[in-house]
Each structure stands twice: as C-alpha cells, then as structure tokens.
C-alpha cells in the first residue's frame, strides 16, 4: 500500500546525511566534553561548531544558543527561567490563548507561584492584535510570549510588531518558533525577539533535541542545576550525537529553505482547492494567507476527527486532528475554541503538514481518498442528516 505522510508538524524523518553525521559520536568520539584531555575537549569544540550552525540558521551569535532536550524544554526554560529571574521586577506575564502546552502549562506553573498571567485572545484567524497586547502590558509585566506560528491552524503571528511594543516598554519577549524554523525564514534580529525556542523534531533532526536562543546578557534562572554545561544555564552532560544531528539538520535546512517553501506552498494550495471542490461544508481554519506554506487545516462538518484520521491511515495516509476524542484529556482543542470554531465542528478537525518530500501524486491520492472517507463517516452520522435537511 502507498504511504503518504502529511504529519510533519508531529515528526519529520531524520535525514540520511544527519544520521551519518551523528554516528561517529556514539562510539568513536564518545568522550565527555567537560574533560580536560583532548578526547573530551575536541568534542567541546564540535559542540561549539554546531552551536554556530544553529545560530546561523536564525541569524544569531553562537554564544546565544542553549541546547535543550526538546522544544518543550526550551519553552519551559524561557517562561520559568525569565519569570523566576525577573520576579523582583514584577509578577505579571502575558501569553496568547493559542500557545503550545509547554508554554501554557509553564505559565500555569508560575500562576501557582503567585504570578499573574494574562491570556491574550486572538481573532477568528488566530492573530494576536498588537493594540490589544499594548493595552494588556502593565508596569509589573516582565515577560510576553507569543508563538511565531501555530501548529494546529498554521497562522503566522506579526511577531516584529508585537516585539516592538515590548521593546519600547522594556518587557522581555519570547517566541515559540518550533513550527516555523526550517519552514520559513526566521531571523531573531528581524523578529526583534529576546528569546526563541526551536526543536529538532520539525527540522529533520532526531527527537530529544531542541534549542533556546536568548539575547546576550539576559538573566535566566536554570531549570536543571548541576555542572556548568551550556554556560551554567543547563546542567547535564551534553547529548553530543543529537547536537551534531541538530547542527547538520540546520545546515541542510538553511540550504533548502527557499525551494522547499515554494514547493510545499504549491502542494498545499492544490490540496486546499481540491478539498473545497470535492467536499461540501468544510471550514478552512487559520489565516488564509498569513500561514505556514505547507500547512492546511480543516474542520469538516458532522464527522469526528479521530475516526477520520484512523480511516485515512487504513489507506496509508497519515495526518493529524485536534478533536477531543484524539486527545487523552478528551477536551476540545483550545486553539479551535479560541478562534471561535463551534465545539461540535471542532471535532471534525483534520490537519495536513507537508514537507519537501511530498509530491503532486500524493496530493492527488489524498484528494481521491479523503472524500470517500468523509462520505462514509457522514453516512453514519446522525447529525449529517439534519444538517442537509436544514
């Protein structure tokens, strides 16, 4: 059976070149980077080279990158690290209502430590309004965190407009760029941010590696205490093979980015046009233009997303959903609720995230199979009957 993978926001395959670059660092160069003899210090040098490569991808300096275990850890370090380090200045932070769980729950953690958190509402496309942010900032606000792009609806936020407001008011600005790095050009100076999280998962690097960019001289409370790895900001012996993997993946991403973005956008547009032409009563969620090039998200009336995803997987098509049944917590996606999608319609969520390896043939295959699956589920659905009658 054909396999069509369109869930690249969840995981990307690790590239051959990346695996090859990593391999020697398991056995051949296994030394601990913190040791004084050359076996270890050579590896320290390798880590710093990777740091420079990752920094280059986002227009930063090598010394401004902290390697972490994931994008989630980078987000935790940014929110809690800044919150705890700056709490004498004030205890108010602002995040958007559609942040990733790692930002949202870090903010909730601070809330339990007597911080106050403002959850900034977004418009129907998921955009944060700079004016609304400006009004929400108070004298005791110490941190604002708004994601660069949302993984569920693809909307890209006006980060440079938002960060300019924070810069003017002296508030630290963080952006979770896990969904954008490797998919669109990301430059920390253009975005004018103080902190930025990225992850290997969406870059073709292995799982278990991420990084946090932080502007020099920013004080950050470490979450993992111990040795002085990562300039004392994150203790623990470095995950050298994964760091090398992230470095190699960043290098490849920088080379391939312009071509990749164009290719996936063309495929995405083909998919969206095709879906609208073949299936009635479908809502395209997120912003129609200001969105990730390879991202298409829909809410399909009268069916449930987990059943749809499962049925598609039986045809070799792998996609994602934000439906309540697919989440372990059995809760409707907070992102879809925040953009005002009615909760019953939100159950029919289907998310396609494309990569450079996807092809026109694969899009055609999806366009052949998706309407069949939707029709089958609608024929079972007690609410489809009333919807068509109405």
């Amino acid at each position: 059976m054909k396999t069509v993978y369109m869930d690249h926001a969840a995981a990307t395959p690790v590239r051959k070149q990346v695996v090859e670059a990593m391999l020697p660092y398991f056995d051949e160069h296994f030394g601990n980077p913190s040791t004084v003899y050359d076996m270890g210090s050579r590896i320290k040098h390798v880590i710093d080279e990777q740091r420079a490569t990752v920094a280059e991808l986002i227009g930063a300096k090598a010394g401004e990158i902290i390697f972490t275990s994931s994008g989630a850890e980078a987000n935790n370090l940014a929110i809690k690290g800044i919150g705890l380090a700056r709490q004498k200045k004030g205890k108010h932070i602002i995040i958007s209502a559609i942040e990733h769980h790692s930002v949202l729950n870090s903010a909730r953690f601070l809330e339990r430590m007597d911080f106050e958190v403002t959850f900034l509402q977004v418009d129907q496309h998921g955009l944060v309004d700079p004016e609304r942010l400006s009004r929400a900032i108070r004298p005791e606000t110490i941190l604002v965190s708004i994601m660069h792009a949302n993984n569920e609806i693809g909307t890209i936020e006006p980060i440079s407009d938002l960060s300019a407001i924070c810069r003017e008011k002296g508030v630290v600005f963080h952006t979770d760029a896990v969904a954008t790095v490797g998919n669109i050009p990301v430059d920390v100076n253009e975005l004018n941010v103080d902190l930025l999280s990225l992850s290997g998962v969406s870059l073709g690097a292995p799982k278990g590696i991420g990084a946090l960019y932080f502007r020099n001289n920013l004080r950050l409370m470490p979450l993992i205490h111990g040795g002085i790895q990562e300039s004392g900001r994150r203790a623990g012996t470095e995950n050298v093979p994964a760091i090398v993997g992230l470095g190699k993946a960043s290098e490849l991403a920088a080379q391939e980015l312009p071509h990749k973005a164009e290719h996936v956008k063309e495929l995405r547009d083909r998919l969206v046009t095709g879906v609208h032409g073949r299936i009635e009563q479908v809502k395209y969620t997120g912003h129609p233009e200001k969105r990730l090039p390879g991202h298409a998200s829909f809410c399909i009336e009268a069916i449930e997303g987990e059943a749809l995803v499962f049925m598609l997987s039986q045809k070799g098509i792998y996609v994602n959903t934000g439906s309540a049944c697919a989440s372990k917590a059995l809760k409707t996606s907070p992102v879809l609720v925040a953009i005002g999608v009615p909760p019953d319609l939100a159950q029919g969520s289907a998310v396609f995230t494309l990569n450079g390896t996807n092809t026109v043939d694969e899009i055609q295959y999806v366009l052949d199979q998706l309407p069949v699956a939707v029709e089958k589920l609608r024929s079972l659905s007690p609410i489809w009957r009333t919807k068509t009658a109405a």
Partner: protein
Amino acid sequence: MYSERVIDHFSNPRNAGAIEDADGIGEVGNPVCGDMMTFYIKVNDDKLTDVKFKTFGCVAAIAVSSIVSEMAKNKTLKEAKAITRKAVAQALDGLPKEKMHCSNLGAKALAEAIRDYEEKKSGKPTSTTEPKKAKRVKRHILCSHCDTKNPVTANFCMSCAEKLDH
C-alpha cells in the same frame, strides 16, 4: 491501540442506518463532547427483530455501536437490557482505557431505545413516532454585557472578558 475486532467493526459497521418506522428510538451523547449515538429498534413479540444505529464519534464509538446492534438483534427485551458496558468491551476484545466510556454510551443508547418503546406501549404520552430529529446543537452563548456571540465552551467573553453565565 485498537484491537482487531474494534478495527473490523469500525471499518465494516453492521446495522448502520436508521429505521423510518422504528418502535423505539434512543439518543445519547452530544456532538459538542465528540460522541453522539442514536439507536432505532423494531420489536415483535417482545423480541428485537431489527436494530440500527447512527453514530457521530471516534473509532471506538462507531465500533461500540456496531457490536451493540449485533449483540441486541434477535434478543428478547430482557436479554437486551442486560447488555452491560463490560460485556460490550469484552465482545470487542477490550478498549483503550480512555475510550471505555464509549462502551457505556452504546449500552445506554440501546436501553434508551427500549425504554422509549416501553413507554409508547404502556400508553404514556410520547412526543412522536417519527424518527427523532436531532436536537439543534447549542453552539453559542451570548455575552450579557456586550452581546458578543461566544462558543459555549468559553468561560469569559472573547470580546469584553466579562464572565459568561451558563
């Protein structure tokens, strides 16, 4: 994650559809929560001669509906009423923990359909013999402060941040 039996019943649901002149109809769940099941039954001589269903929901919800319809068909009312959530889950070779409530919904929808039949038979006033039209889903709650339409799941108004009365 799912057993072969679950996948089989999801992929080839038995007894899917509605019965136009059903003797009893049972409806449980709500699309807002992600699951809604409607069961239709025909009864003759105290026996379920036909059972059909329509389900909006996940893989487990559809598989549960299918197996419940199969388990209930040609049973006496008493036997059908004795179908438990445990028996449903067992007949499917188990369900993931977070999906166990789906097996409950299936048994409940069938029980509701039987109750509907018994009520009609005993002459209690019932609404209609037509297949029940699904209820309009409540999607919005109006903010009493600024009249903005908010999703029913919201606790605070998306426009003016007033607390919403549910």
